[in-house]
């Protein structure tokens, strides 16, 4: 089994107030970066699908992580390599050269070369919240797709993927090769089962930690660098950023005396009810 996981680095939300915004540009110098949380979940899902949950040290398949960005994003890739991915691919570019369509096209080229069984994405990146690249890639590849996965179960040559819907679960069976995007429930203890993992096995909640020796070994795992021009297939940035502005500072809240006062404010001030 071979799985590709697309990762994006996002500004650490704890430090997001350091962002300097001018109308032309968001200045990202000095920001701390993290893997987009949903992409971390995608990686965790891929790792669970390529192991026997009882023996996670023995890898039973290949997980390749890929991203687009400048040299600095390699530190994000190495974090993924430390948690268990086998190798990484970086498409070299700057952040402001990109939009979702271009990213999807570039990834499509890599995926077509790599020929994985599955590609797993986070459902969206928490910076732009666009929720588009996974779907676009599936469309460009003309592969089946299952989005917002809450659980994944491996079968012979297919995945049984469930998403939460109002009042229940909606389950799709996608045949390999396929694209899956994951929601946060995917890292719950009983969300992902490879064929090797016993159905009674429970993972610990959340994503796995990188052990220190794995951080050391990640240094030696390969990171392949590709040029944007070679992967974009002639597609160029299609979005034009007209203006950037910081959100208005939030006004201080008020404490209300009782429920009656709350209802009154909601009805008359906020006009919400």
């Amino acid at each position, binding site marked *: 089994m071979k799985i590709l996981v697309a990762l994006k680095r996002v500004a650490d939300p*704890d*430090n997001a*107030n*350091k962002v300097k915004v001018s109308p032309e540009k968001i200045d990202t110098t*000095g920001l701390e970066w993290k893997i987009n949380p949903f992409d971390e979940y995608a990686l965790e899902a891929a790792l669970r699908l390529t192991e026997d949950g009882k023996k996670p040290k023995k890898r039973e398949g290949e997980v390749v992580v890929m991203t687009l960005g400048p040299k600095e994003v390699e*530190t994000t890739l*190495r*974090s993924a390599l*430390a948690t268990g991915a086998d190798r990484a691919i970086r498409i070299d570019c700057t952040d402001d050269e990109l939009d979702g369509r271009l990213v999807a096209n570039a990834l499509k080229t890599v995926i077509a070369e790599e020929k994985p069984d599955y590609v797993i994405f986070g459902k969206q990146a928490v910076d732009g919240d666009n929720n588009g690249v996974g779907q676009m890639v599936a469309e460009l590849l003309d592969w089946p797709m299952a989005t917002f996965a809450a659980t994944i179960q491996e079968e012979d040559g297919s995945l049984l993927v469930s998403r939460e819907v109002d009042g229940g679960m909606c389950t799709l069976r996608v045949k390999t090769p396929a694209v899956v995007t994951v929601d946060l429930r995917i890292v719950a203890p009983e969300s992902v089962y490879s064929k090797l993992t016993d159905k009674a096995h429970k993972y610990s909640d*959340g994503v796995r*930690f*990188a*052990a*220190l*020796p*794995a*951080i*050391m070994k990640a*240094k030696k795992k390969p990171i392949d660098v590709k040029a944007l021009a070679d992967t974009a297939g002639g597609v160029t940035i299609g979005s034009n950023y007209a203006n950037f502005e910081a959100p208005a500072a939030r006004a201080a809240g008020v404490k209300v005396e009782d429920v009656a006062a709350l209802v009154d404010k909601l009805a008359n001030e906020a006009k919400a009810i």
Partner: protein
Amino acid sequence: MAWLSGLGAKGSCMTDYDEHSTTGGGFAVTSAGRAGAFTPEQFGEEHLKYYQAAAEFSRNQVEPRAEDIDHKKPEVLRELMQQAADLGFFLVEVPEEYGGMALDKATSMLIAEALSPVGSFAVTYGAHTGIGTLPLVYYGTGEQRSRYLERLASGELMASYCLSEPSSGSDALAAKTTATLSADGKHYVLNGTKAWITNGGFADLYTVFAQLVDGDSLKFSAFLIERKTPGVSIGKEERKLGIRGSSTTLVILDNVKVPVENLLGEVGRGHKIAFNILNIGRWKLGIGSVGAAKYALGEGVRYAKERVQFKRPISEFGLIRQKIATSAQLIYAGESMAYRTAGLVDAATAKLDKSDPEYFKKAINIIEEYTIEASILKVFCSDALAFVVDEMLQVHGGNGYTEDYTVERLFRDARIMRIFEGTNEVNRLLIPATLLKRALQGRLPLLEFAEQTKKELSGPGRLPTRGTGPMADEARASELAKRAVVYCASYAATKYLDALKNKQRVLGELADAIAHLYGMDSVIARAERITQAHGEDDELTKVHCALASLYCFEARASIFQSLQRIAMMISEDDELDLLYERLGKLDQRYRVDVMGLQERVAEYILQNDGYKLSH
């Protein structure tokens, strides 16, 4: 201890003091901030990843269980220790041939910092991986190491360090526990009681220090003792003010037969093992205090932003903002000194050849070289932590006095830091004593520097002048303060010779002054480096420079106050006039916009919900 006989050696006036920038204690004579000191901004990706891994473990696994740990819920701590072992946190300082990672001291300090928010866990971890495991790493024979190290590194065995006894704490070498060789020469038989042993309740391997009885003489030596050896028993758990979840017990040895192979190091050299291992412990205690102080500051800041009085969040009040800024400047100084020291040790150790059979002996010599710095870190950072937790508790008002708020635990947990690994008093005495001893051994040109200072003072225009840049005033103040401290130290040493060792008040003041010299030098070096990297107008540069300036302002004043007290303690009337005149020339004030700088720092910290200036 004839550490002051032979005084009066005249140095040449050609001494190049900056040659001593990497000598232990060398900061006292090198020019300010020029020492190329290592700063936290120089950590590479791998260092930061190790730190983040440990910080994440603390945040997600340890901190949520702090209350269970404090209430000694059975097994919580052991379980967390096993998880830490599985993540490789026990491998950091263990050599590769025993499955370890043999990482540098900076990494071990970063991890100690990251694990500091929950004192009980930090102390348990530190006792096992530090004072518990390191005696074997540095002094074990190949056979001893292969017997135990791998299992200590994997968490299969837990370790303890047993030096203190009920009747000997600070005076550790007066231990009463004895070891006698059995008639057949195959065993040592140990008898005695060890006290205050961290991890005592569950450790499997104890490094025990005892007096080896050799005819009429007692030879202080170290032994490796397994818990299961007959005659080893454990006292009840101490009921403590803080770090309540950690295990602290008596370890009682009643005719314990230890195979001769379990003697650690050489007979009669136990004090070397005991003190060098404590040296390493002291850096980690220092940086652990810094980490706990950062955590406490974060708690205080969060509370201050939410708590409203007089219709305003209390974070808007000047006296609250002052507490935040003052805490941050101490953290900044402690952090700068701690990682500078790690940088010194690691740079020297990196030059060693790992395949050299003498590698560990040489590595230990490097650790010994920086023993002054180790004591400074221990004292300065634990005192700083005491200040910070106290002020952050105060920010919480009445709530801070209740168990409902984390700061209450932080306040209790902090207290031990000034007591163990050598009390702050014992460490204070060591700082000037070691510095002067080095001067007499010719390892540091302290007396020459004092002579030079006298000459500089005797004519106009000879003292260092103000340079340029945002740290110009501080750098000059540091230069002058070094002269004043070294001058007073050598004055006292020349006057009292060996008797100085009994003038504890003088030594204590000197210790504080010397610690501040290291602090000033380290923050200046760091702020200058940041200025070079980002430019004077950069916002972050301004915060660094503000912290450095605020700290130097306090440190300078404190140094001269200490020296004034020393002058009064060591001089008759006309001597005092001379001393005052000389010190007066070095005690040059300059203008610092204390309020403006405090505002800048407080604003930054409040905006970032905590210290957030490094990793």
